[in-house]
C-alpha cells in the first residue's frame, strides 16, 4: 500500500540512543509535536536523567502515578542510585525491584518503541542504556457491555460484544472455562496496527482450518483494518458470490456455541462484530434463541425462517410470472379479482413490482441512515404515501403492495443481515427472469442459484453441508432443532474425528 510507505516514521528501525534526551527529541519530532504526547523527565541520584513518555488518554494516569512515578520518587530519596554499582543491569533492577507495574518488557529499537507507545504503553527511557522499558498500563474510555442491537432475542443472554478486543475475549472466556480455549494474537494493518485475535478450542477445531485461518490472515497486506468486514473480504474463499462465507455475530453466546462446534473465531479490535469460520448456509438461518426455547418451538421457528427465505426470494417473482404468463394457475375468482385491480394500472406487472421493490429498498435504507427522531416521519411517508396513495392513484395494484410488504417483512425474519442482503439482491434477478420467462425463468434461476450455492466452500467445508453432502445425523440441528439430550454429535464437516459431544444421560 503506498499510503503505508509514506506513513512510515523516518529512521524507525534506529537503535535506542544512550542519551535519554536525544530519544525524547526524536520521539517529539516523529509525532510532529502532538499535544497528547506527555513526557515527564526526572533526575535520579547521581544526576542520572530518566524520562517517562506516554500518550495522554491511552494510559491510565492514576496507575502511572502509583506504579511508576511514586517508586521512582522513593528512589530519588536514596543517597546513591543502586544501578550505578558495577555488574548490575539498571533496567533489570528497575523492572524487578522498583516498578510495581505488572507488564514490563525491554525494548531495543525505535520502531518497537513507537508501536508500544501508540498502543497505550508507557515508555521509560534511562540515560546510558541502549534499551528502554515498555510498561503496559493501557486504559481507554470504553462502551460498556450492552444489549445486542442487530441480533436481539426474547429469551437468552442479553449481552453483546463491545469495541474492545479484551472485553470481547473475556466475554468468550467467561462462557468457556477450559484451558483448551486458545487465543492467538497478531497485528494487521501497516498503519492502523489493529490487534486481531484468533480464538478456537484446541483439539476441536481441525488443525487444517486453524492453519488456513492463520495463513490467510498473515497474507493480508493492507494499511488499515477498521472493521471485521475489512478482513472478511480477504479471507473468504471466493469473492464473486453474493453470499457471505464468513459468519459474523455480536453475540458472545453465538460465538461460544460456534467454538464448541469446532469453528474458529476471529476477533478484530475496534468492532463489536466477531467473525466465525467456517460458515455454512444453514447457520445464517439459526438464531441463538432456537436453543434457549424448547425444541419444538425452536424447530417451528426454523421452519418458519426457511419459509420466509422462499417468500423473500420468490414472492415478487412468482407474482410477476403468474400474472404475466400463467394466469391459468389462479382460481377463477381470484383471477377476476386481480384483473379488476390491475385494470387501471398503466404498467406491466414487472415494472410495477420493480417500482415498488425499489421504493421499499429506498425506504429501508433511509430508515437505517436517518437520525432516530426523524424515524416516525419515514413510517408515515412509507405507509400512507407509498402504500395507500399509490394504490388510490392507480399507479400500482393493491395486490402488489401486499406482495411487497410480505416480501419485506419476510426478509427481516432471516436472523443474519448478511444473508438477508444477499436474498434482497437475488430477488431482483429472479424478478427479471420471471418477467421474461415465467415459471421456467424462475426455475432456471433457482437451478443456477442452487448450483452456485453448492459450488461454494467456506474454509474447505462445502457451504451447503449438511444438506449437501447429506448427513442424516446432522439434520437434527439443521432444518429442525431436536431436543438437546438427543443432539449428541458435532457437525462432522467442522470437527472431523471429534464428533462425540455428550455422554448418554443416565436414567
Amino acid at each position, binding site marked *: 500500500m503506498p499510503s503505508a510507505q509514506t506513513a512510515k516514521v523516518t529512521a524507525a528501525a534506529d537503535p535506542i540512543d544512550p542519551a535519554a534526551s536525544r530519544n525524547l527529541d526524536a520521539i517529539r519530532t516523529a509525532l510532529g509535536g502532538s499535544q497528547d504526547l506527555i513526557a515527564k523527565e526526572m533526575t535520579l541520584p547521581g544526576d542520572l536523567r530518566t524520562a517517562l513518555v506516554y500518550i495522554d488518554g491511552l494510559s491510565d494516569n492514576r496507575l502511572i502515578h502509583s506504579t511508576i512515578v511514586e517508586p521512582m520518587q522513593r528512589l530519588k530519596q536514596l543517597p546513591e542510585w543502586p544501578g550505578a554499582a558495577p555488574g548490575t543491569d539498571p533496567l533489570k533492577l528497575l523492572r524487578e525491584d522498583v516498578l510495581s507495574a505488572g507488564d514490563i518488557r525491554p525494548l531495543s529499537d525505535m520502531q518497537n518503541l513507537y508501536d508500544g507507545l501508540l498502543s497505550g504503553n508507557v515508555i521509560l527511557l534511562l540515560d546510558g542504556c541502549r534499551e528502554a522499558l515498555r510498561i503496559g498500563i493501557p486504559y481507554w474510555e470504553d462502551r460498556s457491555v450492552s444489549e445486542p442491537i442487530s441480533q436481539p432475542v426474547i429469551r437468552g443472554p442479553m449481552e453483546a460484544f463491545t469495541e474492545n478486543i479484551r472485553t470481547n475475549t473475556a466475554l468468550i472466556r467467561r462462557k468457556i472455562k477450559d484451558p483448551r480455549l486458545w487465543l492467538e494474537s497478531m497485528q494487521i494493518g501497516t498503519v492502523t496496527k489493529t490487534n486481531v485475535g484468533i480464538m478456537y478450542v484446541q483439539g476441536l477445531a481441525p488443525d487444517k482450518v486453524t492453519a488456513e485461518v492463520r495463513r490467510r490472515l498473515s497474507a493480508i497486506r493492507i494499511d488499515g483494518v477498521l472493521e471485521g468486514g475489512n478482513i472478511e473480504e480477504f479471507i473468504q474463499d471466493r469473492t464473486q458470490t453474493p453470499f457471505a462465507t464468513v459468519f459474523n455475530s455480536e453475540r458472545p453466546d453465538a460465538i461460544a456455541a460456534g467454538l464448541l462446534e469446532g469453528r474458529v473465531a476471529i476477533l478484530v479490535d475496534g468492532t463489536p462484530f466477531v467473525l466465525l469460520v467456517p460458515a455454512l448456509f444453514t447457520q445464517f438461518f439459526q438464531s441463538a434463541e432456537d436453543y434457549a426455547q424448547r425444541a419444538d418451538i425452536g424447530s417451528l421457528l426454523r421452519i418458519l425462517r426457511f419459509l420466509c427465505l422462499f417468500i423473500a426470494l420468490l414472492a415478487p417473482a412468482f407474482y410477476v410470472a403468474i400474472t404475466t404468463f400463467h394466469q391459468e394457475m389462479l382460481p377463477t375468482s381470484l383471477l377476476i379479482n386481480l384483473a379488476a385491480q390491475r385494470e387501471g394500472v398503466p404498467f406491466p406487472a414487472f415494472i410495477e413490482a420493480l417500482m415498488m421493490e425499489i421504493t421499499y429498498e429506498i425506504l429501508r435504507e433511509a430508515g437505517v441512515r436517518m437520525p432516530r427522531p426523524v424515524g416516525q416521519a419515514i413510517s408515515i411517508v412509507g405507509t400512507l404515501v407509498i402504500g395507500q396513495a399509490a394504490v388510490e392513484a392507480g399507479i400500482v395494484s393493491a395486490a402488489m403492495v401486499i406482495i411487497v410488504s410480505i416480501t419485506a417483512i419476510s426478509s427481516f425474519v432471516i436472523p443474519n443481515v448478511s444473508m438477508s442482503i444477499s436474498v434482497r439482491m437475488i430477488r431482483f434477478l429472479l424478478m427479471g427472469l420471471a418477467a421474461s420467462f415465467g415459471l421456467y425463468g424462475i426455475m*432456471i434461476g433457482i*437451478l443456477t442459484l442452487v*448450483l452456485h450455492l453448492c459450488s461454494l466452500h467456506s474454509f474447505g467445508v462445502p457451504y451447503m453441508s449438511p444438506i*449437501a453432502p447429506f448427513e442424516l445425523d446432522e439434520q437434527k440441528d439443521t432444518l429442525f432443532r431436536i431436543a438437546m439430550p438427543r443432539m449428541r454429535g458435532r457437525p462432522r464437516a467442522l470437527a472431523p474425528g471429534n464428533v462425540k459431544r455428550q455422554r448418554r444421560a443416565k436414567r
Partner: protein
Amino acid sequence: MSEEKLTMKQLGALTIFALIGDSIIILPSSVAGISRQDAWLSMLLVLLFGPAGCWLMLRLRRLNPSADLIQLLRAGFGRWAGGAVGLAFLYFLVLNTAAVTRELGDLLATQIMPETPIRATHLLFILVLVWGVRCGLPTIARAGEVLFPWFVLFMTALIVLLIPRIEVDRIRPIAAEGFPTILHGSIVAVVYPFAELIVFAMLWPAIRPAKKLARDFMLASLIGGIVMFLVVFISVLVLGPYLTAHQVYPTYALAKKISIGHFLERVEALLAISWMISLFFKGILYFYASLSGIARLFGLRESRALATPLATVVYGLAFAMAPNLVYFNDVGIHFWPYWDITFAYAIPLALLAALAIRGKKPSPAAR
C-alpha cells in the same frame, strides 16, 4: 480439477434423477401406445429387466473402477477401433443432451409458454448446463442432493393427489391382448429409463469406491423404476389407455386432473417444475459425460474449456434434430429405443466379449 469424489447418497440421487429424467414425460404414452391398458403390466416386467441392464453397467465398472467407458473401449477394441467406437459413443452422449434439451423446449412451447420461441428456452437451459459443468461434478452432485427432497415431495404430491381420480375399470380387461404385446411394451419401456443410465459408465471414476456401491446403484434404479411404474399405472388408471396413448404429454394432462376442494387445482405448472429438475440433471450428466469423454478420447487435460463450444453444438443439434414435435416423437417411439439399445447394451456386451477373448484386464493408464 477437484479430487472430490461423489458419495453413495449423491450417486443414488443422480441415478434416480437420470432414470426418471425425460422418461416421466414421454414414457406413459409410448408404453400405453403398445400395450394399451396393460401398460402397467409391461412396467412390472421392466422392474425385472431394468436392473439386469444395470448389472451390465456395474460389470463394466468391475473391470476397472478408475477407467471410464472410453478407456475401456480402447482397451477392448484396440487404440483405433476403440477410438472409433468411442467417437460414436460420444455422439450418442451429445445427441442425448440435445434430445433432453429439445424435450424440455417442446414441452414448454406446447404446454406452458406457447409464445416464447423455443430457441430462447433452449438457450437458457444450455446456459445453465454450461454453468453447472463449469462448477464441476461434485457441485452438480451436491445440487442433486439439495433438490432431491423437493423432487420427492412433488412426485409424491402428484401420485397422492390423483388417488381420488382413480377408476379401476380403466385397466380392465387385464392382459386381454396377450403376453407378446405386454413384452413388446416393456422392451420400449426399459429403454428410456434404464438403458440411458449408461451415462454412469462414463462417471464411474468420479465416484468414491464403496463396498455397497453395486447394491445402492441397483436399489436406486429399482426405486426409480417403481416411480416410473407408479406414474404409468396412475396415468392409465386416471386417463385411461386411449388418452394416455394419444396425449403428447400424458403426465402433464394427468396433473391437470388434480382438483382438491376447488382450491388445490391447476398445479400442473408446479409439477412441470419438478420435471424440469429431473430433466436438468439428466441433461447435465450427459453433457458432463460428453465433455469428459471428449477430453479423454483426445487426451486433453482440461475439459471445462470445451463447455461453451460444445454447448453451441448442442444448441444447434437440439434445434436441428427434428423439424417439429410430431417428427421428434415419432423418432422417439420407433427408432430411438434401438439406438439406445445399441449403445447401452450391444456395445458394452461386445466390449465384455472382446475383453474376455483377449483375456486381459484394462490397466488404469489405458487411453
